[in-house]
């Protein structure tokens, strides 16, 4: 037991720079592999629907716009997305990727929707996805 055991440590920090960051004015760096929001590279999508099937939050929606022209529409509901990047792991052609944005909040949840309309790509899938 020592009276005032904490005082030296406290006084040592009195004139040091604070450990906290003045956040909204001073931005923080995120690591390069940070899991931000998912996005689609439509030129690679073969519409296998693996992402739609594996998404735990049911945030990915793929609908056929025109079956004959092979036109499809993909909507990512970022308001439901839990940023787990399972879609990236499930995708056999690396059409799904994650960006590093994290300040995505909005006043209206519909603004968070991301949409792509594209023709189905003809790409040979990897022999094996990273996980099933």
């Amino acid at each position, binding site marked *: *037991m*020592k*009276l005032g*055991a*904490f005082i030296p*440590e*406290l006084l040592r920090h009195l004139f040091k720079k604070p*450990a906290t960051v003045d956040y909204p004015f001073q931005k923080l760096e*995120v*690591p390069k*592999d*940070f*899991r931000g929001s998912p996005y689609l590279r439509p030129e690679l999508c073969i519409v296998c629907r693996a992402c739609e*099937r*594996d*998404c*735990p*939050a049911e945030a990915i929606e793929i609908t056929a716009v025109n079956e004959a022209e092979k036109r499809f529409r993909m909507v990512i509901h970022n*308001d439901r997305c*839990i*940023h*787990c*990047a*399972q879609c990236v*792991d*499930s995708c056999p052609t690396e059409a799904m990727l*994650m960006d590093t944005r994290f300040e995505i909040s909005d006043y209206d*949840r519909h603004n968070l929707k991301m949409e792509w309309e594209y023709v189905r790509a003809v790409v040979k899938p990897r022999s*094996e996805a*990273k*996980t*099933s």
Partner: protein
Amino acid sequence: MKFQIPIGPQHPALKEPISLRMTVEGEVIRDADIRLGYNHRGLEKLAEQKTWIQNIYLTERICGICSHSHTTCYVQGVEKLMELEPPKRGLYIRTLVAELERIHSHLLWLGVAGHEAGFDSFFMYTWRDREIVMDILEIITGNRVHYGINTIGGVRRDLDEQQVKRILDSLDILRQRSEYYKHLGTNEPSFVARLAGVGYLSREDAIALCAVGPTLRASGVAMDVRKDDPYAVYDEVPFEVCTADTCDVLGRTVVRIKELFQCYNIIEFLLKNLPAGPVAVRAPRRAKPNEVVSRYEAPRGENIHYIKSNGTDKPERLKVRAPTLGNYAATIQMLKNGFIADVPLIFAAIDPCICCAERAVSLVDARTGQEKIISLNSLKSLSLKLSAGNKRKREAEWPL
């Protein structure tokens, strides 16, 4: 004069809703009662509607602080059901994240204990140093809280040399800081005066009331799933089970600080002996009908998942026993004959994660206030009757 004070469901000491009803005489607690069910999320039912893969992320969200514990526990169970053998490197990384999580959880707990005792400087300093672990976790998994590193059959991300070096460098700082907190936590007179002798739980009571984790170990029982029933690579890693004999909140603090040092040693060992090879194997989509119980030593204590499969790509039943639930019975014992001033400390000392443990709801008649117990079948028919007119899930408009 006896009167009842309600602590919770809304109270500044509680970060999550739970109700502690304390019968007090002056400042002394004579009786305590814990009521649960304010934060029930219907998680086990939800798990039955999701595939094995989707459920990893669901179990991850059982708890924010021990998110890796729940996924590992679940994934281990599913791997047993699917008869998968994850590669060594995958298991090493899984264990590494588990130990990093234990560090972050224990540092967080130290801060919370400081805050509950009104020692806010301690709280600020421990949480500042916890950022080091959080940053490491963010670098190696891509997120600070929900790491999402587990997958069925291994882990999702590999480690590179740079990351290994970064972690080893940070360990030195963490060791030094933990040494300082150990010194401070056992030397600052006003802090020790609040912790020592508070919330006494004897060895016999701890065993009889099925306490788990640091609460149990602080009562002198050396019980740790990592040692008693090794999972992942704990049978290869040298470490000690930390105990204390004081049976009070000070003992629980000491156990957690000692465990921090064990964590640093384990991480050092894991990184220096990291085998080469793949990190995951391919998993099938379905599991044969079977059932399995998976155990895991979470930072808070023993975590149990019971999983039953029926041959489809979804589990038939997932039962989660979070460590906090195991400690509630002991908490009541600890609270008795204590002071009101010690309630937050005693309750915080089990490191409660209330919404992890919310597996129960109580049925209360709104008119009479009477509680009743009914069988699962009658509950099912009751809910079917009530929801008869509701739309099915896919047809329901979203957002609701």
